[in-house]
Structures are given as structure tokens and as C-alpha cells.
């Protein structure tokens, strides 16, 4: 009798909780960061609606997100060192910690059990349990000659339960092996080039590439053969050319790969660069509207969508990846900060900060299909990232 009552009680309790939450899959959901208000909205890409607003996430002026492999939880990395685990089905914060003074981004491990954060202040990388955000490993960075830990950037996950990141001030790439969480294994590559400002891992998880601000070219590490060391690619690129001032650092996240070619933003130039993935040689440059920030490939690789740095951040251009022609120039509005494709690429969602909205475009026709109000929106992250290496 008591057991029956208890289970009845539990049932009732469960129902009460579930009433506040959505009972559904999350494969067509996502989130948008609202950078000025420290909040995010949970988005439904099927109905074009916002489901919840979640507040109290701290300083999100630069923020990014990764997803748990069940696509229910988002981990938000904030500018103020905050790491927040959000339940997107219930629209609530599960746990929030402030793990550093100033952070730039993070990654989730191959097995989904670890979340790593890269820090500007005090530098270095910290690794947490994805379950309860308890600290698993603290990896301080090399000290600069001023005695401070180097800023760490371009943190990604890689196969083999590894994280890879770059040290901005000291010009290094480190591989952090977390197979045995109690004994993190570090492999360091020094002298990789001046001021690596961001990094990416190719979608297959094999190559880690860091962009260099302080010199020409890119630093590339083959994660199948780390023993071969870091090599420079596109070394000749930009030699002797005067660069333009850079008003916003480009992002390398989600390097656009279409067929056997990769497309990425030039630093300090109004160009998208095209590289042959077979031999890592530059095979073309596409003149564009401004300095690119994100160059994103539609999931089928047929189109590239590009946004731009200040003062040209009111525009998006669409490039045909086959002909390399610009097929459309959209005036989305000032503060066009980020773009995210739906998982199979029929739509792209674009955040327009100064219009306080997300614009939804049909990628085939480039026609505006809808708008969702959002407060100073920046990054948009859909749940299909959960199953992509490096995102």
C-alpha cells in the first residue's frame, strides 16, 4: 500500500515538473545568445518560434555554446568566465559556475563526459565534468615574459578524447589527452607562429589549423601524425601586401569545406581564400564586400554564406562554391553577427544585432521567410552541432 502511494506521489511530482518542460525531441531546436542582456532564447526551427528565454547567464558579449550528446543540454561559455549548463527542454539553468576571469570558448569531449574551457584570464584551460560541472583538470598556460599565463584560443575537441588549443601570447599549440581524466597528457608544440588568434579542426577531426595574426600563413597539425609536428601552410599568402586594419577578428570555427576545397576568411583583406585540401595550396581568392568574419558552407557544400567585420557588418554575401561567383548580396542590417544553417541546409538563420531580430532565409532562393525578435542577438547554435567534431 505504501509503495503504491509512493509511486503515485512520484508520478504526480513527475507530472508537475513535466508540465513546465517540453515533451519532445530536440533535434530541431537551437538557441540564440542575447549578448547585451546575458540571456538566451531556445528556438524551434520547425515552427519558427522561440520557446523559452533563459536569463542570468552573465556577460555574454562574446559567447559560444556546445551541446550534450543527447542534445538536451547546452553548455554556454561566457566572456566573464561563466560556464552555464542549460536544459533546453525546460528552459532553465541546471548549473552555473564562474570558472575563470575571462574566457573565450569551449568544447565538449568525444564521449560527451567532459567540457573544456579556454581562458584569457588567467590563461590556460580547465576541464569539467559535463554532468555536474565539477573540476576535472586545470591546465595552466605558459607564462609570458610579463609573468602572466598566455591567453588560450581556438579550443576544439578531437578524436581520441583529446582537446587541442593554441596559446596566443607564446605561439604554441597543445594537445590535451583526457583518456585518463586523473592524468591529463599534454603534448606541446612551440614556435608555431606569432599570435595564433583562433583555431579549428577539420570536420573529420584530423587536421588542427590555427590562424596567425602576427604573420602570414596558417599553422597546421596533423592529428593522425602529431610526431611530424606543426607545419606552415599558405605560407606565401599575403607576403609583402599591405593589410587593412582589422576591426573584428575573423572566426575560423566551422571552416567551410566544399568538395575538395576549403574556404576561409582572409585577415585584413576583403577576400575569401580558397585552398585545395589535397595539397594545402591556395587556389583562389574571391573579392567580397568587406573583411569576412564567418565563412560558412551550406551543409551540402554548394553555397558559402559570408558576413563581415565593422564597418561592413550590415551585409551577407552568398557565393556559389563551384563557380566562385557571388550570387547574392543581402542587406540584412547593421550588426549582422552570425549565421547558422538548419541541419540539412534548407534555411539559414542570421542574427542582426541592431534590428534585435533573427532573420530566416530560404537558402535556395535567398528569400526572407521569417523573423524572430531577439534582444541584441549574436551566436546562433543548433543542436545538430552535438554530433560534429570541433563544434
Amino acid at each position, binding site marked *: 500500500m505504501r509503495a503504491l502511494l509512493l509511486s503515485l506521489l512520484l508520478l504526480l511530482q513527475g507530472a508537475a515538473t513535466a508540465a513546465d518542460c517540453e515533451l519532445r525531441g530536440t533535434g530541431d531546436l537551437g538557441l540564440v545568445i542575447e549578448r*547585451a542582456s546575458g540571456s538566451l532564447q531556445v528556438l524551434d526551427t520547425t515552427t519558427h518560434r522561440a520557446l523559452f528565454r533563459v536569463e542570468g547567464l552573465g556577460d555574454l*558579449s562574446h559567447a559560444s555554446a556546445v551541446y550534450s550528446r543527447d542534445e538536451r543540454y547546452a553548455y554556454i561559455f561566457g566572456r566573464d568566465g561563466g560556464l552555464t549548463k542549460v536544459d533546453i527542454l525546460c528552459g532553465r539553468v541546471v548549473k552555473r559556475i564562474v570558472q575563470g576571469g*575571462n574566457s573565450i570558448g569551449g568544447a565538449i569531449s568525444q564521449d560527451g563526459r567532459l567540457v573544456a574551457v579556454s581562458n*584569457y584570464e588567467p590563461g590556460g584551460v580547465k576541464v569539467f565534468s559535463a554532468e555536474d560541472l565539477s573540476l576535472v583538470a586545470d591546465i595552466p598556460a605558459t607564462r609570458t615574459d610579463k609573468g602572466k599565463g598566455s591567453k588560450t584560443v581556438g579550443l576544439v575537441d578531437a578524436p581520441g578524447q583529446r582537446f587541442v588549443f593554441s596559446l596566443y601570447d607564446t605561439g604554441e599549440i597543445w594537445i590535451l589527452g583526457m583518456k585518463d581524466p586523473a592524468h591529463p597528457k599534454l603534448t606541446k608544440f612551440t614556435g608555431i607562429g606569432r*599570435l595564433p588568434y583562433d583555431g579549428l579542426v577539420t570536420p573529420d577531426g584530423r587536421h588542427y589549423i590555427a590562424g596567425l595574426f602576427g604573420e602570414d600563413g596558417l599553422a597546421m597539425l596533423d592529428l593522425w601524425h602529431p610526431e611530424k609536428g606543426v607545419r606552415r601552410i599558405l605560407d606565401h599568402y599575403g607576403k609583402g601586401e599591405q593589410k587593412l*586594419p582589422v*576591426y573584428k*577578428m575573423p572566426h575560423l570555427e566551422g571552416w567551410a569545406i566544399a568538395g575538395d576545397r576549403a574556404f576561409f576568411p582572409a585577415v585584413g583583406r576583403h577576400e575569401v581564400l580558397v585552398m585545395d585540401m589535397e595539397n594545402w595550396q591556395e587556389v583562389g581568392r574571391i573579392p567580397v564586400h568587406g573583411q569576412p568574419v564567418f565563412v560558412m558552407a551550406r551543409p551540402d557544400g554548394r553555397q558559402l554564406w559570408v558576413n563581415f567585420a565593422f*564597418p561592413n557588418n550590415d551585409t551577407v554575401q552568398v557565393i556559389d562554391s563551384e563557380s566562385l561567383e557571388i550570387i547574392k548580396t543581402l542587406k540584412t542590417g547593421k550588426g549582422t553577427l552570425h549565421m547558422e544553417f538548419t541541419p540539412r541546409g534548407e534555411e539559414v538563420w542570421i542574427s542582426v544585432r541592431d534590428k534585435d531580430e533573427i532573420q530566416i532565409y530560404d537558402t535556395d532562393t535567398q528569400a526572407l521567410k521569417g523573423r524572430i525578435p531577439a534582444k541584441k542577438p549574436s551566436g546562433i547554435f543548433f543542436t545538430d552541432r552535438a554530433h560534429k567534431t570541433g563544434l
Partner: protein
Amino acid sequence: MARIRLILLPLLLSMTGLSLASAAEPTPGRQAELIHLLRHDCGSCHGMRLQGGLGPPLTPDRLETLSSEQLSATILHGRPGTPMPPWRPFLTREEALWLARQLKGGVAR
């Protein structure tokens, strides 16, 4: 009448030898634009709350040793060898100086 007063005011100010800087104070509308620029565009490296990012914090205590003139020169001309770009194409000298004073006065929160 209002227009005449607007024209006369700067004239009078310069005649009475008052500092040109205060006469050249940006209009309230422009001030709002400059603060927006500071938070969102300077903020992409220095943090929207100016607590630092890839670029250093722009808080009053960190800027204490620099004069407004030095700061405005950095804003206008950038810092060669670092990612700090020159903002001269978008700002007048007076606007840069005004921004520098806002920073030193603690616009960062």
C-alpha cells in the same frame, strides 16, 4: 531664433576664450552612437563591459597612468604590432578625446 542661437553660441564661446573642447563636445545623438560603438565594436576585443578580452581591460584603474590625450591617440592611430586598429576613419579627434574621457571616467561597468 533657435538656429541663430546655435550659430552664435560657438562663436561666443570662442570669443570668450572658453576651451574649444567643450564647444566640440559631440551632440547627444552622436554620444549615443559613440557609446554604442564602444560597447559593440571596441567590445568585440575588449569585452562589451570593457573588462578585457583579446585586448586589455579598459577600466579606469587600468588606464590611470595614461592621459586622455595619449588614450585618444591610441584610439585614432591604433597600436602597430598588435591587433589594435586605427579608428581614425570613423572618429574625429574630438570624438576620440571624448571617448577617452568617458573611459577614464568609468564608463566601463
